[in-house]
C-alpha cells in the first residue's frame, strides 16, 4: 500500500522482513540456533538435552529435551514475534531469571529455515507437531511423542543465500557448537547434554550436578585436577567457581568462562579483574583457567545490551571487579600460591611455585649474564671501547638504523664472527662483530633453527625416551586433533600413543627439548593445533604443524640464557636457510652499524 504513494518513503516492515532482520542479529550460524534452542530447553526445566546435527548443523539441527513441553496453542503462538512465556511486561525486563526473554528467537529461526516443533505437555495425551517453512506455518497435526519438546531446524538459511555463503566448513561450525555446549555443560551441570554429529557422539556430559564433573568433561582431567575453588561476596554480588593454580596455565584465554546468573557472558571488566589478581604470578602470554559464576539480583545487571545477550553491564562495575579479584587472590593465597610477605611457612602443597620466596634451582654451570642492567652497560661499554681501537672501515651497506625510528632487519651475512656480549631483558641477545652491534630476538632465532631442523628431518631428530611416561588427559576436542595428527607428531619426535578415552601417553620427547619443560611444549603444541583446526578453519598442513611445534619448542622471551647457549644459538642461526626472518615472518636480527653509532655520538 505504501508503495503506491511515492512521496512517502518510510514504511512499516512486514512481519517476515522484521523476523529476518531479527534473525540477522540472533542467528549467525548453527551454533547460535543451538544456543537459543538449548536456552529454551533449560528454561523449560529439561534435565536431558540431546543435540543432533548433520554437516556441522548446516543440514540439520535437532534439539530434543524432556522439559515441560508446550500446549498446542503455545506451539503455534511461540512462532510469533515477541511471543514469550518468560516475561509479561516491561517491568519484568529488570527481573529476568530465565535465559531467554525477548521472544524473538523462535520466529527468527523459523523465518530462515525449515522448522518443525514436536511437543507434548505432561497430562496431555497427544502431542503436537507444527511444520513451518520460512516462517509460514505449513501444517499442524497430532503426534505421539514423549513429554518435552523437540525442535528441528533444517537447511538453515535456505532462503537467505547471502547468509548461507558465510557459513564455514562443517568442521569449523562443529567447533563453534562444541565450544557453546562446553559453556552450557559448565553452567548447567545438572543437565545431561549429548551432542551427536552425523550420528556420532561427540560430547556427553554426566548431568551429575557436580561442577567438578562438568570441568572434567570440558577441560580434561589434568585441568580439572589443577583448579582450586573461589568464593566471595561483595555487596549484592556473590561469586563462586574455580581458578587454576599457577602450575597450570594456557597460552590463550580459551579456558576462561564467566557467567552471570548462569548466563555465559563476556565482560572486559571481569577479564581485567582476573588479570589483576594473577599479575606477576604467571609469565606473560600465559593465562589461567577460570570458571566464575556471579550471582546478582536481576535488577543490578543489564543483559539486554545485545540480542545475543553475551555482553552484560553491571550497575556497579567496580564492585564486581573488586569481588572477583579479591576472591581469586584469596583462593590463591589460601592455597599458598601467591606471593605473601609471610613467615617461614610450613610448606603447603604448592608453595614451591610461589614466585617471591620460591625455591629456584640455580642453573648449573655457567651463569654469565643477567637482566642486571649495570653489568650489561659496563660490559657493553667495555666492548665498544675495544672495538673502537680496531680501525674498521666498512661500507654503510644499507644496514639498519637504530637512530631512525623504524628499525629494519639486517641483510647480508651480518652474522659472521659474532661475539655475544650479553642478554637484555632476558629476551634479546646483544652481540657484536666487525660491522657493529647486533640485537637478536632469542625466541624467533631459536624458532628458525628448530623449524629448519624439523623440516629437514634426516637423522638430526632424535627421541629421548622418558623414564616416567607422561599421561595427557585432554579435552575431547584436543583428543580428536591429536588422534588425527598422531603420525605427524610422532615424526617430529613425540613418541605419543592413544591411552584410553581422550588420553594419550608420551613415552619419548624430541631430544631438542629434553632439558626443558617438555610437558608445556607438548601441551601448548596440542592447544595451538586444536585452535588451528577448529578456529581458523584450516585443514592443518604438515608445514603449520612444524611451525607450531618449532614455536612451542623454542626458548621463550624471558628465559635466561648462558653466554654459551647464546653463542651456540647465534652460530646455529647463521647456518639456517634464512637467519633474518622467522617462519612467521618476523625479523630475527636488527643491527646498529659502527658507522651509525659513531655518527650518533658525533665522532664522524
Amino acid at each position, binding site marked *: 500500500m505504501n508503495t503506491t504513494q511515492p512521496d512517502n518513503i518510510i514504511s512499516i516492515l512486514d512481519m517476515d522482513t522484521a523476523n529476518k532482520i531479527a534473525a540477522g542479529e540472533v542467528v549467525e550460524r548453527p551454533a547460535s540456533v543451538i544456543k537459543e534452542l538449548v536456552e529454551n530447553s533449560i528454561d523449560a526445566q529439561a534435565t536431558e538435552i540431546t543435540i543432533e546435527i548433520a554437516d556441522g548443523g548446516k543440514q540439520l539441527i535437532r534439539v530434543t529435551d524432556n522439559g515441560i513441553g508446550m500446549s498446542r496453542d503455545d506451539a503455534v503462538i511461540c512462532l510469533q514475534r515477541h511471543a514469550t512465556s518468560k516475561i509479561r511486561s516491561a517491568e519484568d525486563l529488570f527481573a529476568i531469571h530465565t535465559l531467554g526473554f525477548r521472544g524473538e528467537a523462535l520466529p527468527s529461526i523459523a523465518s530462515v529455515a525449515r522448522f518443525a516443533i514436536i511437543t507434548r505437555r505432561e497430562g496431555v495425551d497427544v502431542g503436537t507437531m507444527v511444520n513451518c517453512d520460512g516462517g509460514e506455518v505449513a501444517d499442524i497435526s497430532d503426534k505421539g511423542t514423549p513429554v518435552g519438546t523437540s525442535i528441528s531446524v533444517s537447511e538453515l538459511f535456505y532462503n537467505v543465500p547471502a547468509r548461507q555463503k558465510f557459513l564455514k566448513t562443517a568442521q569449523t561450525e562443529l567447533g563453534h557448537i562444541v565450544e557453546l555446549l562446553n559453556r552450557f555443560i559448565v553452567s548447567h551441570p545438572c543437565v545431561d547434554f549429548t551432542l551427536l554429529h552425523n550420528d556420532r557422539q561427540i560430547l556427553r556430559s554426566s548431568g551429575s550436578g557436580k561442577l567438578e564433573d562438568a570441568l572434567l568433561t570440558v577441560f580434561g582431567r589434568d585441568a580439572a585436577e589443577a583448579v582450586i575453588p573461589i568464593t566471595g561476596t561483595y555487596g549484592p554480588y556473590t561469586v563462586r567457581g574455580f581458578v587454576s593454580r599457577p602450575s597450570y596455565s594456557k597460552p590463550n584465554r580459551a579456558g576462561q568462562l564467566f557467567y552471570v546468573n548462569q548466563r555465559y557472558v563476556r565482560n572486559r571488566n571481569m577479564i581485567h579483574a582476573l588479570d589483576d589478581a594473577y599479575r606477576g604470578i604467571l609469565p606473560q602470554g600465559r593465562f589461567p583457567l577460570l570458571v566464575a559464576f556471579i550471582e546478582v539480583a536481576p535488577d543490578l545487571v543489564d543483559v539486554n545490551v545485545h540480542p545475543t545477550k553475551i555482553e552484560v553491564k553491571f550497575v556497579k562495575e567496580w564492585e564486581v571487579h573488586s569481588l572477583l579479584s579479591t576472591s581469586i587472590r584469596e583462593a590463591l593465597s589460601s592455597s599458598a600460591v601467591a606471593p605473601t610477605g609471610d613467615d617461614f611457612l610450613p610448606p603447603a602443597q604448592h608453595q614451591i611455585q610461589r614466585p617471591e620466596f620460591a*625455591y629456584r634451582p640455580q642453573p648449573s654451570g655457567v651463569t654469565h649474564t643477567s637482566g642486571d642492567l649495570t653489568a650489561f652497560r659496563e660490559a657493553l661499554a667495555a666492548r665498544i671501547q675495544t672495538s673502537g681501537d680496531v680501525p674498521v672501515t666498512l661500507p654503510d651497506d644499507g644496514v639498519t638504523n637504530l637512530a631512525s625510528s623504524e628499525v629494519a632487519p639486517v641483510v647480508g651475512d651480518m652474522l659472521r664472527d659474532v661475539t655475544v656480549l650479553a642478554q637484555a631483558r632476558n629476551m634479546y641477545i646483544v652481540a657484536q662483530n666487525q660491522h657493529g652491534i647486533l640485537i637478536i630476538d632469542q625466541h624467533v632465532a631459536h624458532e628458525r633453527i628448530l623449524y629448519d631442523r624439523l623440516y629437514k628431518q634426516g637423522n638430526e631428530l*632424535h627421541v*629421548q625416551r622418558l623414564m616416567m611416561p607422561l599421561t595427557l588427559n585432554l579435552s575431547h576436542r584436543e583428543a580428536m586433533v591429536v588422534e588425527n595428527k598422531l603420525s605427524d607428531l610422532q615424526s617430529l619426535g613425540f613418541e605419543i600413543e592413544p591411552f584410553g578415552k581422550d588420553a594419550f601417553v608420551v613415552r619419548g620427547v624430541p631430544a631438542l627439548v629434553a632439558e626443558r619443560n617438555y610437558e608445556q611444549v607438548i601441551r601448548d603444541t596440542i592447544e595451538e593445533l586444536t585452535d588451528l583446526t577448529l578456529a581458523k578453519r584450516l585443514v592443518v598442513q604438515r608445514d603449520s604443524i612444524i611451525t607450531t611445534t618449532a614455536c612451542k619448542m623454542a626458548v621463550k622471551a624471558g628465559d635466561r640464557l648462558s653466554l654459551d647457549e647464546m653463542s651456540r644459538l647465534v652460530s646455529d642461526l647463521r647456518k639456517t636457510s634464512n637467519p633474518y626472518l622467522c617462519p612467521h615472518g618476523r625479523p630475527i636480527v636488527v643491527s646498529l652499524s659502527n658507522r651509525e653509532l659513531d655518527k650518533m655520538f658525533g665522532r664522524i
Partner: protein
Amino acid sequence: MRATCARKDLHHGVQVASRAIAGRSAWPILNNVLIRTEEGHLRLTAFDLELGIECTIPAAIAEEGALTVPARLLAEVLSTLPEADVEISADEQSAVELKCQKSDYNLLGLPADEFRQLPEIPDDRKFTITQGALRDIIKQTILSVSTDESRAILTGVLLELKENEIKFVGADGYRLALRTATVDGAAGEASCIVPRRALDEISRMLDDDDSPVVVSIAESQIKFVVGGIVLVSRLIEGQFPNYERAIPGECERKLTMPTDDLLQRVRRASIVARENANRVIMKTEEDRMIITAESGDVGKAYEELEVVKEGDDIEIAFNSKYLLEFLTVVGSEGIVMELTGPLNSGKMAPVGRDDYTYVLMPMQIV
C-alpha cells in the same frame, strides 16, 4: 651492642652465613645478616626463608645485644679493611658502626627484632655421617636432579632414613641415581625431599674427611650441623614418584668394563655427538663395544673398547652427557651395565659395590 674481633674471622663468618642469601629480596631484612653476642663470641645468621646458615666467631664482648646489617655491604667493606681488630657496634637507631684502625664506617642496619629466627628443628629424627661420605653421596645423586622448575618435586633429592640406612635418590624424567649408606646414631624414620640448593651449599662446607655431620629432619625443614656451622633448609613438599618402579630388575645381558676407558671414549665421541643431540650409539660385537657418533654438520666418530660380555649382542643409544656425568662421579675402577633392550632403561653400577645404581633411559635409534 659492642664487640671486637679479628677482621679475618668476621669476614669469613659473614661470607659463610651470607650464602643463605640467594638474591636481592624486596624485603630488606632478608638481605641482612644478624649478628648477636654470646659468651665469648658472636653468632652470625642469614636466612632468606628458604635456607638459613648460622656460624660463630670468637670475639670480645663489651656490651651485649644484636644488630642486623646488609650482608653484601658488610662483606665488601670487611674484605678491604686492613688485617687488624674490628670493633662492631650498633645504637638504638640500628646504625651500625664498624671501626678498624683509622677506618670508621657507619652503615644503616635494621632492628634485630625484625629478623626472622631460624626454625627450631627437633632431634628426634636424625643421623650422623662422615663429611667425606656425605659429600660423595650428594655428588653421586645430585647429577640426576631436575632443573625443570615445572617439576618441582624432582628439583630435589629424596632422602629416606630407616633404621641404620639412608637412601638418596635423584631423578629427572630421563635418569635416576640411587645411593645407599649405613649411618651412625640414627633415630626415627624419615622421608623428605631436599632442595638442590641446600645440597649444593652443604657440599661446599664438607671436607673430605671423617669428621661428623649431624642431620636432623623435621616435618618441613632439614638441619645439617657441620663443625660450628648450622644450615637449615626448607623441604620440598609433595610425593616423590615411586622410583623403585623405574629400576629394572636383574638382567641377563651384562657388560663389564673399565670406567676410565669408557669415559675417555665417550668424551671424545661426544665432541661429534654434540651437534646431534649428544647421541652416541653403543654396540657390542663379541668382546668389544663399538661407540659411534655422527652429525651431518661435523662428521663421524668411531671408538672401540674391550668389555666382558654376558648375554647377546645389543645396540643402544644414549645421551652422552648423561653417561659422562655418571662416569665422572661413579668413583670405581670398573662399571657394570645391564641392558635389557634398545628401548628399555639401562642399569649401571660400580663393579663390586651394591650401594650405587644409575638408571638411564635410551634414545631411539631411528
